[in-house]
Each structure stands twice: as C-alpha cells, then as structure tokens.
C-alpha cells in the first residue's frame, strides 16, 4: 500500500510548482495509472516515490513506512523502476543488466543465474538468443522487456513505470502492455505507471489518476471517470479515445 500525503515539489530556480498538494492512496495489488499532459508533474511525482527527487513537503508511505526515513539507496533496490527510453546500461549484456540489482544486494551467483533465467522466461525472451546480447542489438520492444525484467529482478513489491511504451510502434506496444499487466497480476505487485495516452490508461488501469499543472484533478476507475468526470478537462481526456474510435470506424465503414 502506497500513501501519498500533501506532497509538493518546486525545482530550484524554476519558479513554478511542479507538484502541489498531492494526495493519493494506492492499495496493495492495484495497477494505478497517472495521466496528464506533458509537464503536468507525472515524472516528478513518480520519482519522489523512490527518492530520485526529494520532495519539498508532504509524505510518502510504503507499507506504512515513510520513504524519507529509509536509506534512499536501499529504498531504490526494493522498488522496481522502468525508465522512459529503457535506460539499459549500454556496456552490459542483457543478462548483466538484469543481474545489476541482485548483484548490488550481494546475492550469490547461482541464485542470480536462476533468477535471470526465470525473468527472461517471464518477459518472453529466449535465454540462449538474448542473454549475451548488448542493448544496441535489441529492438525497442525487446529493450523494454529487458528493462522490465531488470526492474523486477530483486522481487520488489512495488513497480514504477514512466511512459514505458512511448517509443514503441502500436503493435509492439500492445503486446508489451499486455505482458506488463499479466506480470503485475501474477506477482501481486503494486504498480504506478505514468502515461499521457488515455487509451493505454483505460485498457491497463485499475484506477486512473488525472494530473494537470502539478495537481491531482480526479482519481477513479475508468468507469467512474467516464460516468462522472470532475471537469471539462477530464471529460475531454475521456472523450478523446471514444471520438477517435468513432471517427475511425466511420471512415473504415464508408
């Protein structure tokens, strides 16, 4: 369970409030999607959960414990993170990338090998073909699968994803998204995912949190958002995919 209370952040020298008065509670096992236009403070919020960004005020509790009370390095080893553009280490093979956090935690090598094997299996990459490749030798989708495996290597209870499918073509995107959702379910993770694509959010989320200008506008299941949008902005966000699907259907039927 993740509780975010009164969270705020203004970057030094920027003058604007990146995040302000943000309150949100994510129950264990939930898949929550943070959505909002570019610059609305989604990445900043996500990064404060594992202290890549330090908040100015407020609290974040994971299983009741304030993250500001834990050692940031140990905190990050216990939270999986899939970065925008994957962020794989270019000088390490697929297997080495996946093994990074277990190695930092001092696992023995046999255990790490087994774990890498399991994870490659889970993200549907054949070990013999991929384990010794470098990131440059992978396609975008394969890279994101490796990033997902790396994030999950040390069995974290919490997974953070920052626009993980932004650079993928629509077909790959759908396949990887389905895998992420499946793995979330299977491992019983608590997942926070950032996106600016409402279709993606509607398809993947248990609940959606809408942000604008650093503020949380509305939280709810896709149904709740569709049924009672908090304002015009949310209405537009929800309507957008419906309108597009409609327009497409008409065009194809014509």
């Amino acid at each position, binding site marked *: 369970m993740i509780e975010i209370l009164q969270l705020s952040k203004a970057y030094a020298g920027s003058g604007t409030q990146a995040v302000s008065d943000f309150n949100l509670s994510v129950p264990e096992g939930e898949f929550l999607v943070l959505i909002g236009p570019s610059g609305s403070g989604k990445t900043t919020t996500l990064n404060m959960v594992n202290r890549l960004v330090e908040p100015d005020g407020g609290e974040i509790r994971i299983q009741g414990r304030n993250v500001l009370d834990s050692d940031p390095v140990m905190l990050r080893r216990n939270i999986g993170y899939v970065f925008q553009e994957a962020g794989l280490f270019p000088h390490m093979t697929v297997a080495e990338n996946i093994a*990074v956090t277990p190695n930092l935690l001092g696992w023995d090598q046999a255990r790490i090998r087994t774990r890498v094997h399991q994870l490659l299996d889970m993200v549907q990459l054949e070990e013999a073909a991929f384990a010794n490749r470098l990131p440059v030798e992978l396609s975008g989708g394969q890279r994101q699968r490796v990033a997902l495996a*790396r994030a999950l290597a040390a069995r974290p209870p919490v997974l953070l994803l920052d626009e993980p499918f932004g650079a993928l073509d629509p077909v790959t995107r759908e396949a990887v998204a389905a895998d992420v959702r499946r793995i979330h379910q299977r491992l019983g993770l608590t997942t926070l995912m950032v996106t600016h694509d409402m279709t993606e959010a509607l398809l993947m989320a248990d609940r959606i949190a809408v942000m604008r200008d650093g503020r949380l506008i509305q939280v709810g299941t896709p149904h709740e958002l569709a049924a009672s949008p908090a304002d015009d902005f949310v209405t537009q966000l929800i309507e957008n995919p419906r309108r597009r699907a409609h327009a497409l259907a008409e065009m194809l039927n014509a």
Partner: protein
Amino acid sequence: MNDSVREAWGLLPDYLGQHVILSVSALLLGVAVSLPLGIAASRSRRFGTPLLAAVSVVQTIPGLALLALFYPLLLALSVLTQDLFGFSIRALGFLPALLALTLYAMLPILRNVVTALAGLDPAILMAAKGVGMTPRQSLFKVELPLAAPLVLAGIRTATVWVVGITTLSTPIGQTSLGNYIFTGLQIENWVFVLFGCVAAAALALVLDLLLAVAGSGLAMRSRGRLIAAGLGLVAVIAAALAPELAHPRPAHQGIVIGAKNFGEQYILSQLMASRLRQAGFSVSEKSDLGSTIAFRALTAGDIDAYVDYSGTLWGNILHRTDMPGRQAMLDQLAAALKKDHGIVSLGSLGFENAYIFAMRRDRAEALHIKSLADLAAHPDLRIGGDFEIFSRPEWRAVAAAYGLGAMKRRQYQPDFLYRAVMSGDADVVSAFSSDGRIARYGLVILEDPKAALPPYDAMLLVGPAHAQDAKFIAALKPLIGSISLTLMQQANLRVDRDQDKQTPAATAAWMDQRLPH
C-alpha cells in the same frame, strides 16, 4: 659508416631499455594521477576549470625547458630535505625527467577523462541511481566503463607524446634514445641521429598499436584482444628491462664520468673512462650534460669526474670578471673549488678550448681585418654565435673592449657555425680554439690585442668522493699537461669531419696510445 651502425646497435639495449623504463613510468604515473584528478574535475567545475587551464599551460612550455626546469627545482628541494631530514634526493637524471614527463602525460588523459564523464547520457546516470547504486558504484560500474574508450584514446595520445619527449631527457643526465640524437647532432653523425629518431618512432608506434588493440578489446568485449594487448605490453617492457636485469649496473660502487654536450667532451670522458678501467675501476659515462648541470652534478656526486674549462668556471661558478692572468686563474680556481665544493682540480690537460672569433680568410683579407679591433670599422658585418655566447660575460667584455655592441647577431647550433661562415651567412663567427675545423676550413682567428677574452684551460676535476682516492688520481694524473692543442684539434677533427668520421670511443683509443701512461 659501418662503425657507426655497429656502435649504435651496441648502445641500443641500454638506451632503449632506459627510454622504455622512463616513458612507461611517466605514463603509469600520469594515468594514476590524472584519473582521480579527472574524476574530481568532472564533479566540481570550480576545481576542474583551473586544473585544466593549469595543465594546458604546462603543455605550452617547450619540452626541453620543462625538463631543464625540474633540475634546479629538485636541487633546491634536495638542499631542503638535506637540512630538514638529513638525506638528499637525486636532482639529476631519472627523477626530474620522470616528473616533467608525467606533467606532459597528464593533459590528454585528464582532458579525455573530463570530456568522457561530462558527455555521459543523463538518462543512464539516472538509471544507475534508480536501480540502487551508490555514487561510488555508479562511478565504477557505469561511468568509468562507459568513459573507458575515450580515456584510452587520451592515454594513446599521451603515450606518443611522452615517448617522443623522453628523448629530451638526455641533457639532464637521463640516458634515453635521445643520446643518439644529441650526440649525433654534436658530432654530425647522421647515422646516430637517424637511429635515435627511428627507434623512438618505432617504440611509440608499437605502444600505440598495443593500446589500440586493448581499446578494440574493450569495445568488442573481447577477452582475447585484451589479453593479447596486455601480454604485448608486458613483453615490450620485459624486453626493455632484460639487459638491465641480466647485468644490474652497480648502483653505487661504479665510477661515473661526466661529459658536456660536444665532441671534445665525449672524447675526453671516454679517455678518462678507459684509463680508469685500465686501473681496475668499473666505469660508466653520463654524457650530454648541460654546461652548468655538469658542475652541479659533480658537487652532488651524480658524476665523479669531468673536464671543465677555467674561463667557464671563473665566470659561472666563482662569478668573477677580473682577469688575473692564466696561471693565477688556475691556482685561484683550484683553491676556491676545493674550499667551497670539496672538488679537486688535478690541473690543466695542456690545451685551451677558448672562445675565439674567426672569419673566412678571403673575406678578412678583402676587408683588411686582422683583429677584433678592426671589426669596429665595419658595423654592418653579421656575427654568428652559438646559443650562449651573446649572453655570456665574454661577449660583453669583447663588445665593450672593441665597441661591437651594434653588430647584427645570429645564433646557430654550434656545428652549423662553420657552414654559416663558409656560405657567407655570417661574416664573423664564434668558435672554439681546439676545434679541428678552424684549420680544416682555413679560417683566420681574429687577434685579441686587449686580452678581453679569458683563458680556457681544460681542467680535470674530481668530485669530493674521490678527492683522496690515490688509485683513482694516479690513473688520471698522467693525462695532466700531456694533451697539446694540436693533438686535441686532430682528435676533434676525427669526430667532426664529414669523411671517414670516427666515433668518440675510437678517437679516445687513438689518443690513448699517443699519451703517457
């Protein structure tokens, strides 16, 4: 020709070995210093900017000057450590060369470390932090491995520079492949010069190639290439060290004979060395020392004996400008050197190597010039000198005595002075009285009616360590008073002439037979 090649080959193990040891040590030290400094510089702009600026400035100091600057610096430091801790550091040879070369190695390495670290993708650094790396782990597991190719490129640049500049460590008493070049230039032995250049270039290319293989090994993650490069480097270093290890030079009991950087000095040092060997001493030579460096080296015990000239010591060491007469000068010098420096003068070898001024005979006759006094009537004449003459008291004395201050001056490498006067590039040149080429080229020596130029008797000086060594002195004593000016001129000509050129060693042997034992 054949003799020169054979002699050059014979010297190669020693020269190459010392060259490799010095270059590789400087590079290793350069890497060891530059890596942490580079990392610190990339972390803090306030530290990095001035550091890079300072290292860049060092790079603009000419190599020879930088190397030479470390000698007095270490000498001063040596005096300080002697006073404070009771031991002195060696100011000559390996240490100053090592420090200067390390400074040279630093710029390319440091610059590339900073550039490589600054150029890393911020997303990767964020990821390193995000997976739970401490700053230290991020540095060693992510940043340095990613910076490695560029850093290695910097090390390759440094390697080529350092191997080249190492040749300049010869004048501060460190043997290197530069010995071929400096000696070769002095005695116009182009085989030597070429030998030194080719050997240094080949060494630089081999090291660069091995580092390139290491670099491709890193890039391709090929363990085989890395091992091959590592083995190659070890092999080069081992091959260079082999002669040293097989015949470790006696560090302290051996005698070291010094020589300044011209042919006569090479011949005389070989002559002295051979007389000492005949007496049962183990002897090595340190040649191509700068003029005042040789004297300092003698006082510091870096060399045990060498030949210097009375007029030089009178001005440079005693700082005297008066002219008491030839014998009085010798006596006063002997007394002062003994008293102030513990150095014993065994006496004059019997000839003078004085500064003189010479002209082509036809030109002198056409202008009716016989003495320095006649030059005053021809202020448009050009005078050529070596690198030091115009800043020496001898020139000031001559210029003042004969009113020559306004003459147009040109400076030449000593050996090119003769070419300059023969081709008409210079009308008058400075020369040395024992040089065999004065007679050879038929030059006229301009008289010095006012005795403005001091005498330059060749004196055999013995350092404090052997001042009381009867056997040592007995071996050298027969040389005193026995070398005539004519014999020395002939000997010098054998080394300096263009045809049938002899090596200094062969010439010393030729002299040895003609001198009393």
